[in-house]
């Protein structure tokens, strides 16, 4: 440690599965995440989230994508000492409809105004947050997630796909922090509160 403080990567041995299980979106200005101070220079996960004063209720909207067709990808690049993490979420949203059009319009508004916050759970059970704006009551540096590059099709045949591939993209100075709460509790402040979905 004469030059740089490193940490190890030593997870408990065990199987892990891929894929997204659940996705919620939020106005980054509505939620405040709580994060304990660093321990020996190591960042801690988010442990609590609260709606900010005046936030709209519900503050989280669930995106029901086609099962087995949700993916989060990221890529790190460096130029000198300048680090960039690029993120992308691709979610298959079934059926072209008024519902889909208005959803996409809201994504476009979010991308243009203040970005889109994403809280999502992997099939492994881990939950992550992206696009957040407030941590410990303070605005962090801008982490903008945009609706960018979605496409869709009606298909040609009866058994062709009819719907959209939603693309959300963003970049930041680090990879995503985990949220240690439960998805059930996230649902409790979402537009699907009480639905048990």
């Amino acid at each position, binding site marked *: 440690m004469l030059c740089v403080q490193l940490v190890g990567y030593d997870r408990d041995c065990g199987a892990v599965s891929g894929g997204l299980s659940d996705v919620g979106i939020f106005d980054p200005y509505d939620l*405040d995440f*709580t*994060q*304990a*101070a660093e321990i020996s220079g190591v960042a*801690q996960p988010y*442990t*609590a*989230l*609260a*709606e*900010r004063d005046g936030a709209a209720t519900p503050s989280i909207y669930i995106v029901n994508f086609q099962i087995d067709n949700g993916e989060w990808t990221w890529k790190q690049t460096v130029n000198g000492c300048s680090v960039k993490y690029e993120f992308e979420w691709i979610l298959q949203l079934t059926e072209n409809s008024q519902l889909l059009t208005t959803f996409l319009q809201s994504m476009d508004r979010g991308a243009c105004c203040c970005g889109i916050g994403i809280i999502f759970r992997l099939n492994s059970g881990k939950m992550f947050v992206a696009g957040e704006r407030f941590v*410990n*009551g303070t605005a962090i540096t801008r982490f903008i997630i945009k609706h960018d590059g979605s496409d869709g099709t009606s298909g040609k045949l009866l058994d062709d796909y009819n719907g959209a591939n939603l693309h959300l993209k963003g970049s930041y100075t680090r990879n995503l922090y985990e949220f240690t*709460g*439960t998805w*059930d*509790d*996230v*649902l*409790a*402040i979402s537009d699907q*509160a009480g639905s048990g979905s």
Partner: protein
Amino acid sequence: MPLSEIKDEYKNKVVIFGNNRGLGLPLGQRADIDLLAIMAHESGNHNLIKLFKTLPPLADLKKAKTESELKRPAAPPVEKKMPSSATQPNKVKIKANKAEAQGESAVDTSSTEPNTNTTQ
């Protein structure tokens, strides 16, 4: 009984932390607000700190948390299951010992593999 106390005006506020089993209970109905009090201390989040009418020192909260965890009834003992690959040699050994005692050849009859020792 929690050591910390939420201000009356925030008792209906919902904060997501710990495991509330999706009930979405407001702070006034949660029995685990000491956990949130610990988070408030460790994060210095003024939006959390302002929720508390009584916010005991972190050391007291942690001590109470440890004591309550020690008082929690112990989970029933879990029988450790060895992987089948690890248990198989023992099984064969036991059978071998049994067979030796009976003066027979040690053949695992539970095996589905053809018995190459048998003369036709």
